[in-house]
């Protein structure tokens, strides 16, 4: 720094420290991550348990269910895939559905990636792959600025590793518990309830509500279409309706102002 001109704004403009230095393990930041993520771990484990039960109840073998939780590691996409697998939908329809459900992660990745652009490609890929909703949301709360900073990587992994472990432990417990529970208990319904809990916060405004109602209606109307195409049609028509509703509300707001 330049002696008397040193102040906070100067600190922000200072060149970033050497990458090796900012990415060194920072025990305090890691513990902060663990601490901030702790209250969510029980919920994550329980949500994993529900998905684990739903997987075996929809007809997957224990080996398939274990493979799915370890490889796919995305609860809502897994739940969305289960009825399609049970109905014998083609693999590409399941894939497109999973992509649609996962598109919210693209927004997270746009926001998270610039924080870690100096890391090697393989590491960036793995960190992105393991960043679920909770990890992304809590990280962005703590570090809104993209400036490289010591402890960021440790904080992220402090959130991520326990989150991954809680999810897998819950999920694996659910797989084994689910295969022991009789089907008449209707435990598969817990998966539907879990989807509703994910869905409700996504309906944050009126255009989203329009989209959700239209998508639900089209899905019911088109349920008998071959290859489960009614589902993909529902997503596309619902999305277009939501965007049209947004345009319309924007226009109405503009007219009221003018």
């Amino acid at each position, binding site marked *: 720094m330049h002696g008397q001109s040193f102040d906070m704004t100067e600190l922000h403009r200072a060149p970033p420290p050497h990458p090796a230095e900012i990415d060194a393990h920072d025990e305090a930041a890691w513990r902060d991550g663990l601490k901030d993520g702790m209250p969510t771990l029980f*919920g994550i484990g*329980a*949500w994993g348990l*529900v998905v684990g039960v739903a997987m075996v109840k929809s007809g*997957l073998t224990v080996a*398939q269910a274990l*493979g*799915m939780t370890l490889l796919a*590691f*995305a609860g809502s*996409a*897994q*739940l969305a895939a289960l009825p399609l*697998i049970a109905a014998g939908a083609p*693999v590409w329809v*399941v*894939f497109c559905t*999973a*992509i*649609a*459900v*996962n*598109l*919210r*992660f693209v927004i997270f*990745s*746009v926001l*998270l*990636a610039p924080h*870690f652009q100096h890391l090697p490609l393989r590491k*960036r890929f*793995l960190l*992105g792959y393991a960043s*679920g909703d909770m990890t992304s949301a809590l990280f962005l709360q703590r570090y809104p600025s*993209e400036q490289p900073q010591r402890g960021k990587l440790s904080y992220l992994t402090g959130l991520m590793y326990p989150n991954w472990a809680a999810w897998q432990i819950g999920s694996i417990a659910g797989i084994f518990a689910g295969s022991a529970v009789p089907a008449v208990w209707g435990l598969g*319904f*817990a998966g*539907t*309830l879990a*989807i*509703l*809990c994910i*869905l*409700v916060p*996504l309906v944050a405004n009126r255009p*989203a509500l329009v*989209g*959700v109602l*239209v*998508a*639900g209606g089209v*899905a*019911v109307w088109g349920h*008998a279409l071959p290859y489960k195409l009614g589902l993909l049609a529902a*997503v596309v028509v*619902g*999305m277009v309706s*939501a*965007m049209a509703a*947004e345009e319309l509300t924007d226009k109405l707001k503009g007219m009221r102002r003018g």
Partner: protein
Amino acid sequence: MADWEIWLTIAALAVATAATRASFWVVGHHINIPKRVHEVLRYAPACALAAIVAPDLLLDPAGQVHFEYSNLKLVSALVSVVFYLLRRNMLETIIFGMAFFTALRLLHVF
């Protein structure tokens, strides 16, 4: 589905996770996404989840729509959504919803 088809589907799900979550991590630098694209990214997940749940709640195995009280899944789901809106807690909602659904089923209320 045959065993190998299910494994292929599981692999496809893994690709769907990696392709969405790691997308811009692989690109690396800061990107401003256009408004239209942002709208698609924001509304698609809600629409996809609604499209999954709606047939499950409204249709019987024969494909008939049931909009009445005797549809226990629909009644339980609507009550659970209200519960979630009040409590904002997924775990409590699942436990409440399952208890409610089981009670309706066993007590033959409707």
